[in-house]
Every structure is written in C-alpha cells, then in structure tokens.
C-alpha cells in the first residue's frame, strides 16, 4: 500500500520539475539566512541564480559533519529560534553532538514521510505499532511515533529497554508492527524465548528495522525468529531522522528514497566526483523542503548504490541499496556511533600506554561486542594481577562514560597487534554485514 500515491508514484519528469523548484528555493534560503552557506557558496563562486537545472546541483560545495560541529549548536539553523519547535541531536559522540532543529512544518513533513515509511513497511491505520526505538534526543523514537499517529495507527511508545516488560506488552496488547533496531529485535526474540513465549502466538506481521547496518542473513534470521516480514529503513538526523528511505514490503529490494524531499547523489569519497547510477560510492543528500535545518550536499559517509529502475510496488523514486559500510572508520556499536579516534584519545590518557591498540567488533547472538586490545609495555606492566586488571577495568569505565558504549579491554603482548605499512589497521569488524 502507498500512503501518498500522488507523490510516491509520480512520473520522473513531474518529480524533477518539483525537485528543481524546491532546490532553487532551498539554495536561495540558505544563502540568505545561514552565514556558513553564504561564505561557502561565495568561496566556490556560486550564486543561487546559477542553479538552473538539477545538474547544477554539482556546482554547490559539499557540507561535512565537521561543518555542523563547528556551527554547534544552532549555527546552521535557517530560521529564528522562535520558529523552531523541536530539537534533536545525533548519537555521534565525537566531541559535541550534531544538533538539528525542526519548524512546525518540518515536523509535519517528517510525520508524512514516516507515515509513508510505515505504510511501505506494511502498516495501515488499523495496526498497533510497538515502537521500541529510543525516545529522546535520538530521532528514532519520536520520528516513528509521529508517523504512526499521522497514519492513524495506534502507537505504543515503549522506547528501548526493560525487555521482559516489552514482551509482556506484546503478548497482552497484541501489536502488529514492530519498530526497533535489528539487533534489538533479535534480543527481544531471545528474551521472549527464555520467557517461554513463542512469536507465532503473537500478532506481528511486519517490522521496520534500521539505525544500524544489518545484513540479508540477519533479515532472514529476524523473519524466522520473530515470524514477521522485516524491512530496512534508512535515515540520519542531519537529513531528517528516519524517513529518508525505506524498503517496500512487496519487493524488499532496495530502499525507496523520498526524492520529493531529498535529492540523493553517489560520489567517489576520495575524488568527490559524482558517480552514475549503479556505481558503489558515498551517499550525499540535499534536503529540498526542510525549513529549520536544510543541508546542501551533505556527505553521509555511508557507502551504498543508487538504482533508478521502477519497483514492482509502483513507486517511481530512486532506490538505494543496503548501506554497505562507511567511507570513514566510524563503527556503529549497538546503535551508538563510535570512531576509533575517540577510543584512542581515551586510552592515550592513561600514562604509559602506547598507541598500539586495535578494536575488534563481533556479534554474539544479536548483540555487538566491542573488544579493545591494548599492548602491554614495560611502563604499564606490573607483576601484580590486580594492577593490570584495574587498568583494564579503568579503561572500560572511561570508554563507557565517554562514549556510552560498553567495551571489553584486553591486554595483549607487545607486537601482537598487526602493524601495517602506512595507515594502521585499527578496526577488525567480524560482523557479517
């Protein structure tokens, strides 16, 4: 089923006409209201009136996460704070989070996109939606919540955690749609099994899972264990939150990008050259309807591929493949963004530790495990077990406090962490994604 038939199945030509008009409006708005963009555009020698066709998008400079950070917290907003009704922030923990704002109309746009998303994932107004995405600064919980209400479905705003209670509510309330991260879905399944509750006795028919990378194998596992159809959703707070793209339940093949609100591009992350459809590269988005926080050619660092063939569900918008990885070294551990450089700065604060470390990410059952291997040198070595263990526990505590993610610190013998010529191999990701 399609929530907004008119837009979601619009012929390309009509869609592109709308995109161009909206792009021109956005470009002129940011040029006139956000000093950062004016400066960037001036440096690139481009004026709003130079955008005469969609191809002219390529004349505009890229926006990087670092730009958002440097304009923390509200410097990238394009409306006065009077008009901002909502603030969210990214889970990114590199220094300051990325702060995003929404006007009342932005919230409406987002709700519409999430209603489309839910319906693409199999939900209708008659459904009960068990929303186990976190509520708060993270966009997941409230994004789905507003979409569910817009759709007219009943939403259970359960948020994350307290899994036994979640299972009890699933049994008693009979929700039909599950929304959460894929790893949490599998964890719920494990807890339900321990409680002696079989998902076949529950009423779920579909689940919309995202906010972290997952694989086709994991989809099959979720579908089997939770007895529902699983679809992939993509979004990031810098663009709008969830609701940038979603798979349809009919095809489960590629995520439909809501192109009437976002223009996608795929670029070579090194040369920044725009790549043709079908080529793997980094996703770049330009928002064309957002008021409070428009972004121009935002470098997502997510690696994917775009393909334009229409889908059998009837939607005409470009689809993106599953996110295959990152063009930087960011890891997503249990939904939290982690950069190796952050772990590095934490371990380097410990007197005597050398920068020989490596992060190993593994998936045990449905949970991601992060192990930080640190080489023991003479400065930190002790003949007493407790001293070495205190060092491990201390580092674990600092990582948990600073990054909000649990890690296991493991001391290893010197020279056992593989040395590479040039760039050190900091991350070994053993997860099957």
């Amino acid at each position, binding site marked *: 089923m399609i929530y907004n038939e008119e837009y979601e199945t619009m012929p390309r030509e009509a869609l592109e006409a709308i995109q161009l008009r909206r792009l021109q409006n956005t470009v002129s708005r940011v040029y006139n209201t956000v000093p950062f963009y004016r400066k960037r555009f001036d440096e690139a020698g481009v004026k709003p009136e130079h955008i005469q066709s969609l191809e002219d998008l390529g004349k505009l400079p890229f926006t990087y996460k670092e730009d958002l950070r440097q304009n923390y917290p509200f410097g990238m907003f394009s409306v006065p704070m009077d008009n901002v009704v909502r603030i969210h922030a990214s889970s990114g923990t590199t220094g300051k989070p990325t702060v995003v704002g929404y006007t009342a109309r932005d919230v409406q746009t987002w709700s519409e996109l999430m209603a489309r998303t839910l319906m693409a994932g199999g939900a209708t107004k008659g459904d009960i939606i068990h929303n186990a995405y976190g509520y708060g600064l993270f966009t997941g919980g409230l994004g789905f919540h507003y979409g569910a209400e817009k759709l007219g479905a009943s939403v259970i705003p359960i948020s994350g955690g307290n899994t036994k209670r979640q299972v009890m509510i699933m049994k008693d309330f009979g929700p039909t749609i599950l929304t959460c991260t894929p790893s949490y879905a599998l964890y719920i399944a494990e807890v339900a099994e321990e409680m002696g509750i079989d998902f076949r006795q529950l009423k779920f028919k579909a689940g919309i899972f995202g906010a972290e990378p997952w694989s086709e194998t994991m989809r099959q596992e979720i579908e089997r264990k939770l007895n529902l159809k699983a679809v992939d959703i993509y979004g990031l707070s810098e663009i709008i939150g969830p609701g940038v793209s979603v798979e349809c339940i009919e095809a489960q093949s590629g995520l439909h990008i809501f192109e009437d609100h976002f223009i996608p591009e795929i670029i070579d992350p090194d040369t920044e050259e725009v790549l043709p459809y079908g080529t793997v590269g980094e996703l770049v988005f330009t928002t064309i309807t957002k008021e409070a926080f428009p972004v121009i050619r935002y470098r997502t660092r997510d690696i994917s591929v775009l393909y334009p063939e229409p889908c059998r569900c009837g939607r005409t918008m470009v689809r993106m493949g599953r996110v295959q990885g990152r063009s930087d070294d960011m890891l997503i551990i249990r939904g939290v963004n982690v950069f190796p450089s952050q772990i590095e700065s934490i371990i380097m604060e410990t007197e005597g530790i050398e920068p020989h470390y490596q992060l190993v990410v593994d998936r045990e059952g449905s949970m991601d495990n992060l192990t930080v291997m640190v080489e*023991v040198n003479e400065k930190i070595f002790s*003949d*007493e*077990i407790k001293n070495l263990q205190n060092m*491990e526990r201390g580092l674990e505590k600092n990582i948990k406090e600073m990054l909000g993610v649990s890690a296991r610190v493991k001391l290893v*013998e*010197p020279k056992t962490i593989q040395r590479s010529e040039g760039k050190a191999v900091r991350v070994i990701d053993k997860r099957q994604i």
Partner: protein
Amino acid sequence: MRVEQISIFLENKAGRLAEVTRILGQGNINIRALSLADTSDFGILRLIVNDHEKAKEILKEHGFTVGRTEVVAVEVEDKPGGLNKILQILFEAHINVEYMYAFVQQSGQNAVLIFRFDDIDAAVDVLRRNGVTVIEGKKLYSM
C-alpha cells in the same frame, strides 16, 4: 636481603609459556623458582633465575614485556607449621603480602618462601627481629 625477580606478561594462548622456557634454556638460564598467576585473558610469569640481567635482556629481544621487582626470600624449616609461623609474624606486624610462592631446596631440609611486599624494608626488619632467616639474593641465585 633483596632478591631480584623478573616477571613476564603472557597472553593466555597455547605455547607462550613454552616459548619463554625455550628462550631461557637456549640462553643457558637456570630457573630457581617460579610462579604463574593467571586470569582468563593473561598471565604473569614470575621467575627467579641465576642471571636476571641476561634473562631480561634475551626475553626482551624476543619481544616479551619483562618487569623487574624486588622480593624477599625467607628460609624456613620444611615441616608442618613452618609457613604459618612466618605468616603469623607478618600478620601481627600488619604487613600485607601481595603474593608469595615457595619451593623446597634440594637437600629437602629447608623450604624457601618468596614474598612480595609493598614495604620491603619494614617486612625484612620484622622478619629479622623475629629470628627468621632472610636469604641474600646472591646465595639464592646460585643455590
């Protein structure tokens, strides 16, 4: 009165301990006493050898992390209650033992106890005042 002990960091994986003994054997180093403390991830091998300088050097050459600590060696008659007598003395003087291990001398008459204390001087003082034989490093290395 002080004895040099070397300690080696070992990951808990097959063959690491054998690698240490192989290197020491090839370097003609004789092990006088040893103890291995371990956790699920790693172990600390503590050794008293006939030539700690050389042992440390060759182990480091092979990439091991090697530490050096001063410990106290005490001689005690090899009969029931021997260890307890020493521990009572230390307990009454409020001296904390970080760790200890023991070996029996070839003659079979005496046992040697190796103690790691935080405050070596205080411990040695107490032991001597109570008539306990504290063995010199030189004597122990060549035993």
